[in-house]
């Protein structure tokens, strides 16, 4: 057994906490759900392997070693994935700074705070590496099965990406702390994380729009300009790509760099991490004065009072805005494509419409959860002299109102360009938003708004229903815009999802 308060002892404690967090995330806290979760996990793993087979099987036996286009493609994909890992790691690091949980106990104990925080950083890195490896595993397994064991080297690259992402996240967040201070870092780090997560994808899409007029991420990576400006195949920049393709020397160099970066970051920042965590602890007592634009209480209907409250709470919560920012950011490329097609007069809106409808559905799902389930004063609202039906209506109106406000500019411009497509897009946005709201109504729970991050794990059924409903409405709108009868089929699927949701909804069962 390891010595109490030693690095290994602390690491085993962190591992136990991490494992329990993970299992409760998977089983939603219920022991009886463990079996169901295991079955769902197996189905998911099989599905991911089939998906991987469909997408990467054709690359398994190709010799890509000296092909610049392939190196650009692989490196671009790695950077794309890494940006998402970095985004997640920044979220984790920020959360570790601001979450109080056991910090008081740790900082008042005689254990070395430096050791504790070094282990905690290690836990963040382990989580990032585990997520990266788990997500990449189906693709690597398929490639290795069909193309030989050389592809297994990709596991090393992926794990290194997780380690480097954590090192970069630690450096970035601590730099933000030093520059911005404890009060602003939480918000800014989360916005930066959201932007990093979306920026690379969006940047590539914007480049693709200008170069090829499509939303494909790979069009830009394979463009003549990119290939002409790429370094030659011997450059160190391609080492990760070479490593993925089974070059063990490159793999060794990449892993040495990655692990070295992580160890250096932990050694360098473990002491500062504690200082910044203490500084972050004082942030919650900060006061914000609210300016009044008008004096006096205003006369409003009960519904308007509730809608106004929902909008005010959302507007004033930058953390929640940053959590939903990603979906809004993804609208930038479609908006740009719309702007270009508006001038060119071609039919690219067929690509644009499903993206917009899908984004509307996903954004509405988040807003609906906040409005319907994330009520911080449920007793107050429930004891007010207003029927529960009217309360729910007001909350739904708040969601649909906000979605309308966000998507109206795109729909209006599209309508000016192509009236039929514009009207369809508007209907699609409203349908997807209404469907996502209905899903949230059926699966409503009582929660605090601060639990927003966990909404997707509290009900996986709701999460999947929301996603499939958005996809079905996006497909319906796109097919209707293309004037094909197949739209009726996808519309039937969309309604079928809602019917299924209604049938299995806990709120119906509890009636």
């Amino acid at each position, binding site marked *: 057994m390891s010595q109490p308060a030693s690095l290994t002892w602390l690491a085993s404690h962190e591992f136990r906490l991490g494992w329990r967090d993970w299992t409760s995330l998977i089983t939603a806290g219920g022991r009886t759900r463990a079996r169901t979760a295991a079955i769902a996990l197996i189905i998911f793993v099989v599905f991911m392997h089939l998906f991987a087979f469909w997408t990467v099987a054709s690359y398994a036996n190709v010799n890509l070693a000296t092909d610049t286009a392939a190196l650009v493609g692989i490196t671009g994909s790695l950077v794309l994935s890494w940006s998402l890992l970095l985004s997640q790691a920044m979220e984790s690091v920020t959360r570790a700074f601001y979450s109080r949980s056991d910090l008081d106990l740790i900082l008042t104990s005689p254990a070395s705070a430096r050791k504790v925080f070094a282990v905690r950083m290690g836990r963040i890195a382990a989580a990032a590496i585990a997520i990266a490896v788990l997500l990449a595993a189906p693709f690597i397994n398929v490639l290795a099965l069909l193309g030989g064991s050389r592809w297994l080297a990709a596991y090393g690259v992926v794990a290194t990406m997780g380690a480097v992402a954590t090192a970069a996240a630690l450096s970035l967040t601590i730099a933000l702390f030093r520059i911005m201070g404890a009060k602003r870092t939480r918000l800014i780090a989360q916005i930066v994380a959201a932007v990093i997560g979306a920026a690379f994808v969006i940047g590539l899409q914007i480049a693709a729009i200008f170069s090829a007029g499509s939303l494909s991420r790979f069009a830009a990576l394979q463009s003549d300009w990119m290939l002409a400006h790429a370094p030659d195949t011997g450059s160190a920049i391609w080492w990760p790509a070479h490593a993925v393709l089974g070059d063990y020397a490159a793999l060794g160099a990449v892993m040495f760099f990655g692990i070295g970066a992580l160890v250096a970051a932990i050694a360098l920042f473990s002491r500062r991490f504690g200082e910044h965590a203490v500084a972050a602890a004082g942030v919650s007592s900060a*006061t914000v004065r609210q*300016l009044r634009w008008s004096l006096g*209480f205003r006369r409003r209907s*009960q519904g308007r009072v509730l809608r106004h409250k929902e909008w005010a709470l959302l507007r004033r919560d930058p953390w929640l805005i940053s959590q939903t920012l990603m979906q809004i950011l993804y609208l930038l490329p479609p908006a740009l494509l719309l702007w270009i097609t508006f001038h060119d007069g071609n039919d690219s809106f067929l690509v644009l419409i499903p993206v917009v409808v899908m984004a509307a559905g996903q954004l509405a799902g988040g807003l609906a959860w906040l409005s319907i389930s994330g009520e*911080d004063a449920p*007793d*107050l609202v*429930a004891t007010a002299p207003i029927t529960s039906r009217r309360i729910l209506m007001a909350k739904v109106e708040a969601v649909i109102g906000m979605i309308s406000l966000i998507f109206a500019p795109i729909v209006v411009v599209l309508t000016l360009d192509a009236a039929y497509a514009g009207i369809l897009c508007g209907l699609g946005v409203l349908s997807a938003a209404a469907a996502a709201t209905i899903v949230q109504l059926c699966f409503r729970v009582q929660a605090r708004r601060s639990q927003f991050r966990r909404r997707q794990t509290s009900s996986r059924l709701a999460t999947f229903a929301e996603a499939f409903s958005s996809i079905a409405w996006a497909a319906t709108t796109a097919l209707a815009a293309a004037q094909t009868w197949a739209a009726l089929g996808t519309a039937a699927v969309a309604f079928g999802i809602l019917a299924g949701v209604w049938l299995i909804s806990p709120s119906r069962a509890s009636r």
Partner: protein
Amino acid sequence: MNQQNYPIALALRGISKRFDRPAVDALDLTVYGGEFYALVGPNGAGKTTTLRMVVGLLRPDAGLICIDGIDALSDPVAAKQITAWLSDEPMIYDKLTPYEYLEFVAGLWRIEPAAAEARARELIGWLGLEPHAHERCEGFSKGMRQKVALAGALVHDPKLIILDEPLTGLDAGTARQVKDVLRARVRAGGTVIMTTHILEVAERMADRIGVIAGGRLIAEGTLDDLRRQTGKTATSLEDTFLMLVAEQAAAA
């Protein structure tokens, strides 16, 4: 107070609620207008469940709830219009200021804006919230949050105020302010029903005390009435309460 001179503010008849086991068991309770009524009992006795049924947060399995003559189960909106609820954990919105919170509550209760604002200003001053009236509640201490919630409960001028452990976790100064506000409310003709574990508070503030155990009202009356029920007249409320609960446990 002479109960015969006052109308009934709250009448519970045969109220029952069962979760895994009976939480409230055919409970009868009458509280008169202008009365300060304290409900005491051991943990899990059914106090909070009873009050949550009264304010419409739980639906009883059986029984009747009448608030100021209104059947709260068949016309909950009318009953809620004259009732206020305050729990031990103040539920307010972190991103709203006390002033905005009171405006929101007044809007929900459809109170005339000018009257509601005057009342809000009065309550803000009364509870010493003036310096923080336009600050967001997110940095407030538990005591300040409880004061904001109390102001919210009073801004619509309810006839019946129901409080569940309102003094838990408050410092002496804040607790005194809350008690003063509640006393003033009763003097002005309002009815207050409060659960508390602090028996001293019940002893000093309440006109009548109800002792609840195992989901049933096992004793009720003034402190002297309760003492008489135990047969020992010179004991404190704490001793009286413990004897009553022990008797009930033995009988069960």
